[in-house]
């Protein structure tokens, strides 16, 4: 039971808006101490896990390119392009991106997308511009809301698309775990069952995005 102290520290620390790095490192050390791991071994374990998970930082490797393109007007160009499409709305654009993200992930192409490479430079500015083209300059809160939806669509698309692909890490993890427990299944007979959820979430999120369109229209009104 005592090992749950780390969970409590994380919840309290995040709720009280302490610096997340500090909260996480304190929670990690407290959990390990409660679990009876010696202090020197804790530092070693932290170092080893940190190095093993360096791949998570590779997303930042795109920043030099994205930054250079932003400096030269990438966002502005994307916005100008979308403003010309009369039928474009924030919701419809994000539904289109959701469909693209789910379909490409479902055939294993999870690299089409991402918050640094696609959402910040392209999807979010376009979603904002689609609304601005209809309603004029957007209030700050509305812009933040649209951006948050753009980020959410990227997550939802990849999460509930990728498991349909049989060679995806999660499908292989499920297979390996069941194998260990004496249940032999083909990856296909696991991946297949991800399809109903994929369809359901596309429906749910699309309805929410159409509702977002209506909310924007009611809140901001059509431009005369």
């Amino acid at each position: 039971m005592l090992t749950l102290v780390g969970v409590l520290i994380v919840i309290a620390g995040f709720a009280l808006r302490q610096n997340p790095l500090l909260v996480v490192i304190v929670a990690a050390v407290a959990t390990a101490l409660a679990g009876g791991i010696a202090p020197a071994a804790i530092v070693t374990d932290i170092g080893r896990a940190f190095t093993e998970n360096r791949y998570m930082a590779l997303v930042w490797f795109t920043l030099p390119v994205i930054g250079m393109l932003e400096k030269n007007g990438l966002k502005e160009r994307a916005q100008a392009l979308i403003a010309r499409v009369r039928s474009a709305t924030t919701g419809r654009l994000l539904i289109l991106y959701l469909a693209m993200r789910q379909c490409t992930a479902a055939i294993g192409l999870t690299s089409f997308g991402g918050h640094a490479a696609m959402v910040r430079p392209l999807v979010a500015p376009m979603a904002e511009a689609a609304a601005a083209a209809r309603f004029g300059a957007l209030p700050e809160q509305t812009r933040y809301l649209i951006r948050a939806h753009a980020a959410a669509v990227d997550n939802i698309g990849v999460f509930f698309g990728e498991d349909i692909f049989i060679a995806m890490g999660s499908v292989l993890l499920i297979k390996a775990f069941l194998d260990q427990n004496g249940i032999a299944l083909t990856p296909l007979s696991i991946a297949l069952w991800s399809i109903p959820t994929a369809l359901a979430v596309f429906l749910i999120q699309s309805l929410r995005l159409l509702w977002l369109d209506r909310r924007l229209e009611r809140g901001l009104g059509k431009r005369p």
Partner: protein
Amino acid sequence: MSILDAIYALLGLMFAAASFINLRDRSNPKRYKSALFWGLYAVTFFFGTWLPPFVTGCLVILMALTAGIGGLGKGASGEAAEAERRERAAHFGNRLFVPALLIPLVTVAGTLLLQHVANHGHPLVAVKDATLVALGVAVLVALAVGLVMLRQQAAVPLFEARRLLNSVGSVAVLPQLLAVLGALFALAGVGQVVADLVGRFIPVDNAFAVVTAYAVGMALFTMVMGNAFAAFPVMTAGIGLPLIVHLHHGNPGVMGAIGMLAGYCGTLMTPLAANFNIVPAALLELPDQNGVVKVQIPTGLILLVVNTLLIYFLVFRF
């Protein structure tokens, strides 16, 4: 030194450049701390493969203290003025999309290609590293094309990377640190404690209650661990296999697949999945670091209900 190590070294170089530029930025009142933070991070990338884990651990703790006590400060962003960006956008037109789209395209092509390239029968890159290496190569290709096409000076990408890193701030390291937390949770046996707690309160004879406990347990556990992959073995060993499969004769494929997706509903709703939820909030410059989580919660909750029902109606039928 593997190809992946070389890419990590380049990434280290980028962090080192950010550190150096921050050090010379007098507009940032905390420039020394900021330089120290990114400098330490650079070291873990340059030498990560060779440093003893104990030393890396010390560096990580030092980084957390540097960022955690008093923050890093920002200084002038150095962002190009909007009028200038509009002018350049009009000048370059759709050419601007080429380097941006090269990143995903080359990554995908590279991933497919690298899995088939072998040197004397040995694969050039380990299969699990193929996507990472391909991404690294894709960035270098996009960078080269962008520099030539837009006629940029070579230092521009580094200054721009530093601008974006500063706007994200120390949260950039959070996903990696949460992975550390997950590793220590696993070593300390947190998973088993949670599974036991959940398991203690289920009426095992009721199939619907068992399914609900499994699906909701996956989501809750994922929210606590920040990672559905960590939750899956624990919940499936604790509840899924003994109760759904063995006691009620459910289909393990249905249970595993949709159970994992119930976990993903948890991922949508927790700040602990920082790379999906907190990092984009920082990247998109949202004032509320939980802005993305809040938008995702309704979808997460509705879909969790859907997943629970899907398991219940499918798992005993196939």
